[in-house]
């Protein structure tokens, strides 16, 4: 039994070694398949100027996460890599990493290399808070913070620390100036997105539709989207014949059957479902099995390219029925082709989700450049710089964003409307989607009188 004690001692020693290296950051990963090319022209705010002179650098104020001597900027990422949105966020993060690899290979941000400090929160709020606490003094800003309740949970701390964060959620409540003091939200909020996509369907795809069925998961994402769909239905004169807002419980199979039955019984022309990919395929499959036919639609997280993969049972029917909305251009769009080549070279398979990561990285890039220009790369400096950006252009990957000025004025209403593309997916030329309209704003979305969050997160 002595060996057990020995093992314990060995374990403790090993653990102590691990922890003492806490502050020793791993150097930039040389094995990573860094894109050796200069960033493509589409990567908008890339500034690959001549190496900076040390004189100018010394004038720059820094506190956390920026080390001018080592030439490093550290950016934190609170990601859900193994939780419910794991596959999605992993791809987003891969896009972010590929973008920074490109920037770093081309000389970095004015000579400073950007390193990501990634933590997997598994979409658990406690982890989110604990990891924030762990990395906050190592990073200058958060490149993304996954999940609305999670981001709300660290928000007081963000404000106390003067830390900038990019929320990886499209909750419509981010428009509230009291909430977004430290946040750079981007893309069309779920609620407006529902207006946009349904606007496209009611004018372009199915103009004679009269009824709609709505179903969603509970929480900020599902219910914000469902509320948007209801408002849009009212504005478009659609009758809501089935209301399953918050009725889909991913862990409870019976709710999926109930929702599918409700949709079928309603006989709706249009079905709006805001849920997770696995539950979407189950609900759609059950409705299809009952011979139900309609135009199905939903926000980006409802769709997965796996639905139209060559071995998918619902491939043909889903391709026929589905029209989706998303925030960025697609892999199959011309606007992303240069970037797509670069990603493919890094060994990444076609997917639309990388571009969200690239957009996040571009916002951060613009904020860092501006902070450098201002000579203040402290946390507060980067926050101020980010909040003063009056035009972040993504080179066609996504509609441009502005953060200076009044939050309500700069509500993003543009998005991409797409349909599934099984052939492109099989051939490796698309991420399983092809766009119907890019940088599109439907009349429904343009005329939507947005006065505040469509769904309020409990106080």
């Amino acid at each position, binding site marked *: 039994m002595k060996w057990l004690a020995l093992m314990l001692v060995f374990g403790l020693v090993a653990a102590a070694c691990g922890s003492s290296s806490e502050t020793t950051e791993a*150097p930039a*990963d040389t094995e990573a398949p860094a894109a050796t090319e200069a960033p493509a022209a589409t990567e908008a705010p890339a500034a690959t100027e001549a190496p900076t002179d040390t004189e100018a650098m010394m004038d720059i104020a820094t506190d956390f996460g920026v080390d001018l001597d080592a030439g490093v900027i550290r950016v934190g990422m609170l990601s859900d890599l193994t939780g419910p949105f794991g596959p999605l966020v992993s791809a987003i993060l891969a896009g972010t990493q590929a973008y920074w690899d490109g920037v770093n290979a081309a000389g970095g941000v004015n000579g400073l290399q950007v390193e990501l400090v990634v933590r997997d929160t598994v979409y658990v*709020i406690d*982890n989110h808070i604990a990891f924030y606490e762990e990395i906050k003094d190592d990073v200058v800003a958060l490149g993304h913070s996954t999940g609305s*309740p999670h981001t709300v949970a660290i928000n007081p701390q963000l404000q106390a620390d003067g830390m900038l964060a990019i929320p990886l959620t499209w909750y419509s409540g981010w428009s509230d100036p009291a909430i977004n003091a430290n946040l750079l939200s981007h893309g069309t909020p779920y609620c407006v997105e529902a207006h946009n996509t349904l606007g496209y369907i009611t004018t372009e795809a199915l103009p004679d539709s009269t009824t709609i069925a709505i179903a969603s998961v509970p929480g900020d994402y599902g219910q914000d989207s469902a509320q948007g769909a209801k408002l849009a239905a009212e504005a478009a004169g659609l009758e809501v014949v089935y209301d399953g807002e918050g009725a889909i419980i991913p862990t409870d199979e019976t709710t999926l059957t109930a929702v599918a039955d409700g949709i079928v019984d309603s006989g709706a022309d249009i079905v709006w479902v805001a849920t997770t990919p696995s539950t979407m395929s189950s609900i759609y499959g059950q409705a299809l099995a009952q011979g139900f036919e309609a135009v199905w639609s939903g926000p980006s997280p409802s769709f997965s390219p796996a639905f139209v993969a060559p071995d998918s049972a619902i491939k043909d029917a889903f391709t026929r029925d589905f029209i989706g909305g998303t925030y960025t251009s697609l892999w199959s769009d011309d606007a992303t082709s240069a970037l797509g080549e670069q990603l493919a070279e890094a060994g990444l398979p076609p997917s639309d989700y990388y571009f969200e990561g690239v957009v996040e990285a571009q916002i951060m890039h613009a904020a860092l450049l501006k902070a450098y220009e201002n000579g203040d790369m402290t946390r507060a400096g980067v926050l101020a710089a980010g909040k003063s950006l009056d035009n972040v252009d993504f080179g066609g990957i996504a509609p441009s964003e502005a953060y200076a000025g009044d939050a309500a004025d700069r509500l993003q209403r543009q998005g991409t409307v797409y349909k599934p593309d099984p052939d492109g997916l099989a051939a490796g030329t698309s991420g399983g989607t092809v766009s119907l309209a890019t940088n599109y704003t439907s009349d429904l979305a343009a005329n939507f009188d947005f006065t505040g969050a469509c769904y309020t997160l409990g106080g």
Partner: protein
Amino acid sequence: MRGRPNLFTSYESDQAMLNTTTKKVILFTLLAFLVLLPFTGGGGPGNVRLFDWTIPGFGWLAAESWLQLMGTVCIFGIAALGLNLLTGLAGQVSLGHAFFMGIGAYTAAWLGAAEGPLLGMGMPIWIWLPAAGLVAAGVGVLVGPTAVRVRGLYLAIVTLGLVFIGEYFFRNWRTLTGGSQAGRDFPRLQVRFWKEEAALIDTTADGSWLTTNGKGFLFLLFLLVVFALLAKNIQRTRTGRAFQAIRDRDVAAEIMGVNEFRYKLLAFGLSSFYAGVAGALLAAYFGRTIPERWDLFLSVQLIAILLIGGAGTTSGAILGSAFVIMLPRFVQNGTEWLKGQIAEGGIIATIADPIIATSNTDFGLINTLPGTGPGLSVLQLNQVLYGLLIILFLIFEPFGLYGIWLRIRNYWKGWPFTY
């Protein structure tokens, strides 16, 4: 009897909580160390700590994130102490601990959270914290009678059901819980006399000697010590012995005159009280929680704490919490250290290379790279480790970490005559 260790001449000294000098020395050194820790390690930018020096060898432990982690350990310690009363002492296997923690958390929210769109009365902590325990205990007493009828695996299934019933209620009672995946704010750990007064103790803002996390940790450490003393004392009383008699053989216990119904009810009540308090503290410590927080995984985590720490012992419950809660951080830091070694090259790199994937084309057991590559993430690895550790401890060391400590202690006690 000076100079004669382990010779107890009275029942009192034999049953004393700290019946040997070694125990006293170890406990008080540890406590002194833990109390001192958050005051040290100042000097950094914007730091408010009292001392600029650090305790040699333990400077890293005084870091903000470690203090926060140790605060979490204290809360799980209280929860585990409660489960230990029920499962470790009275032998009633319960998977429902997360449910009682949830009850405590939402009682705290109802009474303590600020008035707003969701239920909240803005009461101070000295009302909501005991109330959280009492309400949970009340529910525990209601559930208790089932334990008289069913035992063992069947009781585990009954209590398992509680977790799912609870989750259903928590998800759907939107005015109280904020609803599924949305959650609500909870009262913070602030001590005040009445509602609107300035807080006497405020663990949500830096003080002049301590940081936020330092204050939170000390506050929770104090509560842990109080609850540990309480648990240890319950164990030493007639009640504790009755629990153990029921655990060892309930029929025999009843024949000896132990009122099985009464004591099983009491065990459930006491354990739920601990759970309620721990749940309220957990929610208050992090400030925001969704109804899905009180799920089966939390119950399993607590069972793991007991089994790894050593069921039936007070120190085992606390040791287990420290181990289970801090393990992920150690694993993560270890992985990052290895990743750094691989980048540098050398002998450790050769060993570590097959274990760790550093790019999405590199194979490795652990994947440190975000993206689509193969391998387990650090947190998935942790879940595997929990499972592995439970199995290993059950097979090789049923008394858990406490058992290992006993072995080490006994080895040195008899040294050099260890046979």
